[in-house]
């Protein structure tokens, strides 16, 4: 298949998914959340006058036919306009923009930590003595089963309240970043290590590894220079999973460590029933997912041109 054609197809299917996500959120706002005009005026409890409701309807275009509203909604989305927060009275995109940095910092730190840990542990434990592997896979089972907020609580208990070596909360400084990113990274690292070790072990049986050993390379050299490069390829495919795990985990971890960020914003929006904010963040998450998967497909194709099916 032609590479340009492949890129175009992936791009179109990505846009299709985004369009579907936008349609779902539009339906969500209009079909099941009650009257949007009432929600804008502060919910049914505020009991505004009929005049006021009519005024808001005209102002927000809610008196138009649903199909027209749908068109306008998509038009606004195309300009990255996610609407106005019911509660904060400011554009959703502006609020999200202000909080995105903190979450990005946390997620990237966690992703880097998870990658580092998993490569380190996988290289050290692949094809080693049975008790080493049993120890490693046992702790991987526990860490991948325990959710990040449980791991975070245990980390807090030990490092902040037991030994007093790291701050329990806050968004400033790299020291405050250590525990939250560790809480996010550990379950992720456990899953990645399992995949990586399996790949490493099957790679280590390949003839070119025997060749490298025959040339007199040390075991560490064989693992780092030859086997690891092959074993890393399936990890790229997991990036979508990594992203979803990080974003889902961030909601809880940001609350746990009292950090600023998208997760906290999402939680507040859910508590206050601030629909535009909630759905704006959901759409953003979907958009990031689509972009990540698009890049993953391209990287996969570039690394391994055979993997271009469907």
């Amino acid at each position, binding site marked *: 298949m032609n590479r340009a054609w492949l890129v175009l197809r992936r791009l179109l299917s990505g846009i299709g998914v985004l369009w579907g996500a936008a349609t779902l959120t539009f339906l969500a706002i209009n079909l099941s959340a009650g009257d949007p005009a009432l929600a804008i005026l502060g919910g049914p409890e505020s009991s505004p006058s009929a005049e006021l409701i009519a005024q808001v309807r005209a102002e927000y275009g809610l008196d138009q036919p649903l199909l027209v509203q749908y068109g306008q909604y998509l038009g606004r989305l195309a300009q990255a306009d996610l609407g106005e927060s019911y509660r904060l009275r400011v554009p959703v995109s502006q609020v999200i923009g202000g909080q995105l940095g903190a979450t990005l910092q946390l997620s990237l730190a966690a992703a880097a930590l998870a990658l580092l840990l998993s490569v380190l542990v996988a290289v050290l434990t692949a094809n080693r003595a049975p008790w080493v592997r049993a120890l490693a896979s046992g702790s991987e089972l*526990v860490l991948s089963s325990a959710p990040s907020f449980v791991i975070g609580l*245990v980390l807090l208990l030990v490092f902040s309240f037991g030994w007093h070596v790291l701050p329990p909360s806050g968004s400033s400084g790299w020291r405050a970043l250590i525990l939250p990113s560790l809480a996010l990274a550990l379950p992720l690292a456990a899953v990645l290590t399992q995949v990586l070790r399996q790949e490493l072990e099957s790679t280590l049986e390949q003839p070119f590894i025997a060749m490298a050993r025959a040339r007199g390379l040390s075991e560490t050299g064989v693992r780092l220079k030859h086997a690891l490069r092959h074993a890393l390829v399936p990890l790229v495919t997991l990036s979508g999973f990594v992203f*979803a795990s990080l974003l*889902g985990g961030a909601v*809880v971890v940001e609350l746990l460590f009292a950090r600023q960020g998208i997760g906290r914003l999402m939680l507040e929006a859910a508590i206050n029933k601030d629909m535009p904010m909630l759905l704006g963040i959901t759409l953003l998450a979907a958009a990031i997912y689509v972009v990540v998967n698009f890049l993953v497909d391209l990287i996969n194709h570039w690394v391994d041109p055979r993997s271009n099916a469907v």
Partner: protein
Amino acid sequence: MTELTLGNPSLKPGSETLFVAHRAWQLRPGLTLAALFVLLLLVAALQPGWLISGDPLDANARQAFRAPDSVHWLGTDENGRDILVRLVHAVRPSLLLGLAATAIGLLIGTVFGLLAGLGPRWLDGAVMRLVDVLLAFPDLLLALVVITFFGQGLFNTIIAVGIASVPRYARLVRAQTLVVRNAGYVEAATTLGLRRRAVIARHVLPNAIKPVLILATIGIGGNIIAGAALSFLGFGAPPPVPEWGGMLAIGRNYLGNAWWLVAWPALAITLTVVSITAIGRELLRRNEGKRP
């Protein structure tokens, strides 16, 4: 070859099956412990009174924050309630949520997957695009949106967590269906003149669903975590009701002076999920025909 694979596609020739059956008796200690723990959880969910006596809501301010001792084995919480009693009584909602949410996800996912795998091409395309869209939303965010729409409560949490796991099962069932659909025994059944519906019900579904059911076992653990996370975020049952996630949320405020408020619920969640996952993985391993 067709004869051998008629009943179960993953069945190996006779000697191999005998070998597996023989090995099944040599249970490994970790797995036995996991099975025992799950059994204990089931008893706690059905009849908590058999394991422990006491009222999980019984508050006594004079007994607050007592460290674990011989009377209160795991200590007491900020209102003087016994933590062990609360932990045991919290098993039922957790298991119920894990099982029911998995059942909902599995049911809707199976319908979607069968429609996509067996239906005409346009239906396959339409269903899978919908699944792609759902997959683009992170699970926890999707669950939060559903709860915001329909309100709090155990039932809505079950729906929320269940819906979030639909796309995964839909994809699995579709993939399985495509594998099974082209298998020799389905072709044989069709050639024998069985009607399409009978072939699907008797041959395609049973063979496609087995690996999916095993993965769903592991999924129960994940859904228990999702439920605990929602409860931790404050979307579970209101405070006095014992729930693992809610207990952690309250314990978080007293990390400095009472470690036992957090440590035991954390241990309970982790042990539960580890046990379920270990059992699920073992089933998966056996189904793939590897040595136990």
